């Protein structure tokens, strides 16, 4: 499981890859929460486009981060969610609660290019 995060101007994007199940979700959760505490973003974007597998444990993960951001007065979005993951999110109506936005990856990479806070975390 690998997570890349970009952080700039109070916006933080976390790109998750690999499989999200009950086993992996704990370290992913801890990884994201650590970054939230570190960077205190106003907006958190979870990029789920590279997720190869997700089951209902991912719902807890996503909703938990959403709650956390809201508690700190922030916002959270999902981005580039793939069909498969969307199918799971829809089952719990999460797609209605958390907005899914389309992001241009190239744009994001450029946007965040000269940011020293970028990190590649192996979790």
């Amino acid at each position: 499981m690998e997570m890349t995060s970009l952080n700039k101007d109070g916006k933080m994007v976390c790109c998750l890859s690999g499989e999200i199940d009950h086993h992996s979700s704990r370290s992913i959760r801890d990884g994201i929460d650590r970054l939230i505490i570190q960077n205190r973003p106003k907006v958190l974007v979870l990029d789920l486009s590279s997720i190869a597998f997700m089951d209902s444990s991912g719902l807890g993960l996503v909703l938990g981060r959403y709650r956390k951001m809201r508690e700190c007065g922030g916002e959270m979005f999902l981005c580039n969610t793939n069909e498969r993951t969307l199918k799971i999110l829809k089952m719990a109506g999460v797609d209605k609660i958390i907005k899914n936005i389309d992001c241009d990856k190239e744009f994001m990479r450029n946007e965040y290019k000269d940011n020293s806070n970028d990190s590649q975390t192996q979790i």
Partner: protein
Amino acid sequence: MSIKTTAMTAKLKFKEKGGDIKMKKSRVVNSLKIQFPAKSANEAFSRALISSFAAQLDPTVEELCDIKTAVSEAVTNCIVHAYDDSVPEKKKIIKMHCFYDENNLLSVKITDNGRGIEDVKKAMEPLYTTGGEDRSGMGFPIMQSFTDELKVKSVLYKGTTVTLKKYIGKTNYDI
């Protein structure tokens, strides 16, 4: 795709009449039994296992994802809910029995010897969970919607068996 729709309709009609998916007695073509410790590292293992086994039926990507997800949910439940800390590690076991028949009906039975479920009907309701805020209570609803049949048998203090059934690949339904 159209074959599948027919199958689904047939299945639904059958269900309306109050029947299970047992349209025709058909021979088991292949089967596999395995037992492993209820450790969370084995969630990924159980998915790899069912993927390889189901591959023999030439599934679509969608079908494979569906059955993988359903199995992952059932196995995760054994790991998260079935055994409490008082159970010795040696006894925290999950059994998985996979088989398919001539009609390409894949069945997966997942069994634990854990605490059991007091009210199965309630446990299967969407969003119902006893697992705290990391759990979503969507495991059973996902198993239900990603398979053609879901059966849960549970005896308190004895354990739980979840049976998932799904038609895979090209199917020939003679009803």
